[in-house]
């Protein structure tokens, strides 16, 4: 029986916190709604028909859509990029088409300054007629299209594998025609001026002097504004922390002393015990992901042979990278879900009947989705699946999994949300909607919710709109909702351990909601500066994403205090604190949040930097330092926290946890500082000095200092895998071997009481 609403516990913090958080979130999503509207109404048109001046039909709008599907199905977005988005080994095909087409046109006009001016004008003039939906290419542009169709046929039908693609990747002439049509369209929006504006649909991206593409006034202006915004924001924040710091953060007195229960005294519910298998899966996926990363990296260091073996026949670069990225999401998400399953009964005090069965179902579903989608991607890249196929092909970078698997994954996470609801139902009914259980539940609910938004990106839709929705998932997940859910979850862990008061935890969560949402929601637009969106996306994206850095700075300042947590209790507890390495991994999360997300993210965030940098090495640097540094370390922390209770105390391999901690962090730091950062800096220099096309060329990437730098990361990677991932696998294996101590269920109701993790001893006055 659920008690009536009248008996709800009162909200523990001031209502102002709730109001402020709601206001910020509503404002952010209101603006996002407007931006979505503008994406559809002010994006670049896809012409119904493209003809040459003589009226000859070149390609249709359908060809563009089909060509995008061909591009995606063959995993080309994990090889090179379009409009700057995708992999970094292959060229940016937009810049590639533009350069080749403009060069061909220049040659056709006879070269020289007059010809240059003519090419510039031809490419910039917008000859699209919105009434008829017909776009007219000049003769030179039309000839270039024909020539480039031939070029790409040769390029993709190449029987060799020395580019990292599989041999004879695309041979069907119709598909080549469609693919070229798609690339031609992206090049057209990149050079043709927006009606009424002096710059192209992509804000003049990419930098291509042949077609007169150079940074616009807006790019410079909003770079300056966002830089100022950042400085003012940080200044204001530090001012506020100095003034009110005592109320914020995790500082707080504790009135009681605590004895942490030894893991041997913690009897687990059935679903909690199933999480042992979850974390074994997490560890194995992590291992697979890291090994695939090694294979991906090997292509960059030595493109033509894998220690004498032609790997590209089986595992071409783009497939290795697809799997590498997909697995990074899978294992992190699986760890989050498992931690949720482990924590929910602690929050509720008991676990309902059959929750263990549901946990098994969820795990099975996850394994099926992971395996099924990875296989589908492999089949698609090897050409066994029709482009755009519902079952077998989608392959936007990050949203690689084909549609059916995407739906199943969203459904799986929804099943998890149902499990959370079952476990927490009574607690939620008793508690104020502003308190911790509700925040935990709601922020958990947002994870499948945001993920489902990705379904709005369909392979045949206009790239500008698909990219808009794609980054709702990619960005809003990692830079907003996962951060929130993380805070809620970690807060809860420490409330459970008794080292943080619930009220203190709540204040921190609300502060997080406000700070992250203030910048992070609209900040999504920092990914679509150049995807064909109107200029307001760039302006708002630059301004608000600069604000994102503010909480990251704050959190590093505060993250430490957040584990300060009644440090006094550790000393006074008669039992040892069981989570030394879980906490150290959280310390690492704080560090990488600052360095990987804050510093390396902001490094590439200004529109003027992004204009030259997008799709180059500094993005890889940021992505590794933040994805692994923040979410990878966090997943390991959650794993160690849970595994601690699954492994008997005398079997707990404290040494391996320590080795794993140091190896993962040193390995990651080495990877970034030995290779990714210097490589990215050099490539950015090349991009500004020689040109974006040049900086993305295979010749540059495999050139002299680059190859050396790529090899230089080997020791770090080896340490990461051998010293970091393998010990974690071992600990997870121990978890499955022992699976904790079972608690007895009530035979009548099937309800299992949940364990307590600590005992509060006599109150002592610490005031």
């Amino acid at each position: 029986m659920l008690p009536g609403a009248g008996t709800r516990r009162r909200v523990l913090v001031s209502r102002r916190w709730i109001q402020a958080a709601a206001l910020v979130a509503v404002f952010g999503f209101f603006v996002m709604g407007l931006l979505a509207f503008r994406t559809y109404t002010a994006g670049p048109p896809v012409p119904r028909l493209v003809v040459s001046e003589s009226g000859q039909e070149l390609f249709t709008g359908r060809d563009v859509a089909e060509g995008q599907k061909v591009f995606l199905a063959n995993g080309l977005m994990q090889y090179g990029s379009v409009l700057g988005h995708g992999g970094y080994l292959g060229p940016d095909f937009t810049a590639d088409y533009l350069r080749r087409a403009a060069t061909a046109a220049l040659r056709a006009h006879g070269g020289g300054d007059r010809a240059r001016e003519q090419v510039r004008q031809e490419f910039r003039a917008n000859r699209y007629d919105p009434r008829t939906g017909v776009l007219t290419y000049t003769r030179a542009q039309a000839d270039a299209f024909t020539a480039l169709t031939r070029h790409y046929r040769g390029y993709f039908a190449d029987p060799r594998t020395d580019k990292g693609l599989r041999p004879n990747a695309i041979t069907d002439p119709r598909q080549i025609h469609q693919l070229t049509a798609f690339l031609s369209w992206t090049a057209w929006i990149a050079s043709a001026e927006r009606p009424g504006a002096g710059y192209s649909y992509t804000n003049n991206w990419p930098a291509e002097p042949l077609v007169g593409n150079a940074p616009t006034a807006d790019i410079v202006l909003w770079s300056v504004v966002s830089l100022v915004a950042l400085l003012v924001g940080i200044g204001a924040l530090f001012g506020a922390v100095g003034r009110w710091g005592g109320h914020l953060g995790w500082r707080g007195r504790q009135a009681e002393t605590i004895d942490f229960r030894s893991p041997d005294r913690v009897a687990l519910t059935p679903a909690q015990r199933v999480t042992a298998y979850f974390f074994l899966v997490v560890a194995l996926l992590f291992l697979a992901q890291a090994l695939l990363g090694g294979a991906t990296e090997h292509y960059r260091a030595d493109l033509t042979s894998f220690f004498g073996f032609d790997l590209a026949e089986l595992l071409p670069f783009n497939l290795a990278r697809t799997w590498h990225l997909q697995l990074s999401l899978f294992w992190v998400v699986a760890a989050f879900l498992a931690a949720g399953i482990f924590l929910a009964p602690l929050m509720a005090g008991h676990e309902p009947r059959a929750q263990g069965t549901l946990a098994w179902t969820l795990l099975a579903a996850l394994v099926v989705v992971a395996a099924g989608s990875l296989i589908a991607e492999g089949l698609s890249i090897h050409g066994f699946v029709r482009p755009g196929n519902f079952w077998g092909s989608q392959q936007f970078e990050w949203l690689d999994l084909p549609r059916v698997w995407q739906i199943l994954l969203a459904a799986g996470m929804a099943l998890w949300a149902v499990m959370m609801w079952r476990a927490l139902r009574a607690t939620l009914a008793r508690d104020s909607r502003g308190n911790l259980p509700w925040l935990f539940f709601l922020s958990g609910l947002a994870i499948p919710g945001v993920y489902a938004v990705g379904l709005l990106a369909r392979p045949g839709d206009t790239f500008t709109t698909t990219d808009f929705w794609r980054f709702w998932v990619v960005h809003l997940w990692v830079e907003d909702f996962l951060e929130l859910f993380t805070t809620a979850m970690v807060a809860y862990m420490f409330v459970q351990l008794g080292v943080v008061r619930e009220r203190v935890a709540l204040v921190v969560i609300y502060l997080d909601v406000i700070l992250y949402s203030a910048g992070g929601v609209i900040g999504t637009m920092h990914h679509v500066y150049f995807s064909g969106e109107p200029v307001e996306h760039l302006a708002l994206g630059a301004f608000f994403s600069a604000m994102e850095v503010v909480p990251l700075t704050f959190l590093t300042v505060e993250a430490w205090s957040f584990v300060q947590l009644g440090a006094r209790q550790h000393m006074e507890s008669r039992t040892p604190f069981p989570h030394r390495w879980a906490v150290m991994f959280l310390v690492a999360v704080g560090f990488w949040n600052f360095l990987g997300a804050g510093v390396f993210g902001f490094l590439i965030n200004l529109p003027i930097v992004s204009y030259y940098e997008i799709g180059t090495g500094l993005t890889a640097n940021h992505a590794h330092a933040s994805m692994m540094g923040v979410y990878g370390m966090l997943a390991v922390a959650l794993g160690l926290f849970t595994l601690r209770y699954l492994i008997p105390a005398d079997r707990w391999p404290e040494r391996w946890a320590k080795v794993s901690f140091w190896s993962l962090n040193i390995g990651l730091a080495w990877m970034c500082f030995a290779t990714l950062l210097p490589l990215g800096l050099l490539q950015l220099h090349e991009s500004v000095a020689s040109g974006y096309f040049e900086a993305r060329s295979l010749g540059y990437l495999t050139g002299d200092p680059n190859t050396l730098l790529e090899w230089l990361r080997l020791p770090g990677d080896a340490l990461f895998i051998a010293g970091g991932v393998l010990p974690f696998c071992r600990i997870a294996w121990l978890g499955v071997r022992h699976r904790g101590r079972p608690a007895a269920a009530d035979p009548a109701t099937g309800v299992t009481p949940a364990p307590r993790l600590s005992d509060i001893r006599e109150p002592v006055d610490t005031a």
Partner: protein
Amino acid sequence: MIFTTEAVLAYGYAAGLLVTAAGLDRMARHVGRRPERHRIRPDHDTRVCPAGRTPRPADREPHLARPSACVACPGGPGCARPGGGEIVRAPRPWPHSEAGRFHRGLALVLVVLAASLTLIEAVRRPAWPDLALAAAMLTAIAVMARWLVRRLRATPAGFPEPGGKATDRDRYASVRKSRP
């Protein structure tokens, strides 16, 4: 120019790594501080200093109380710096101690990397004026490494064992009070 571009870039980057390592060491020190000398009274929005007063923070430095407030205070010499009352004093206990170790450990990794880069570049381009740069770099690296190793040694993890007190403290974390 007398040096090759590549050498300047390589050694310049190595120098950048040293600077970053020094930055990490600073962070480690920051981590260890505890702005707790002054406590916060939650009911009022005020700080309470060790003498039980509520001095206003100095304008520039939120961790310092106004000098004027401390001059007259009997406890002043014990807890004030020339610039004002010192709010920061005791090193924080675990996990801050170990977080400090973490930062210093990573700083040392960067120094090792700087050394590797310098050596590789010196072997790749063993031309004369560049080698002078390499030698200078290696000297700087050696000095830095020694300094960091000492600081790392002096930063124990400080993980509290029950019964025993976590006695070790990070010698480099506590901010020295004003010298009398």
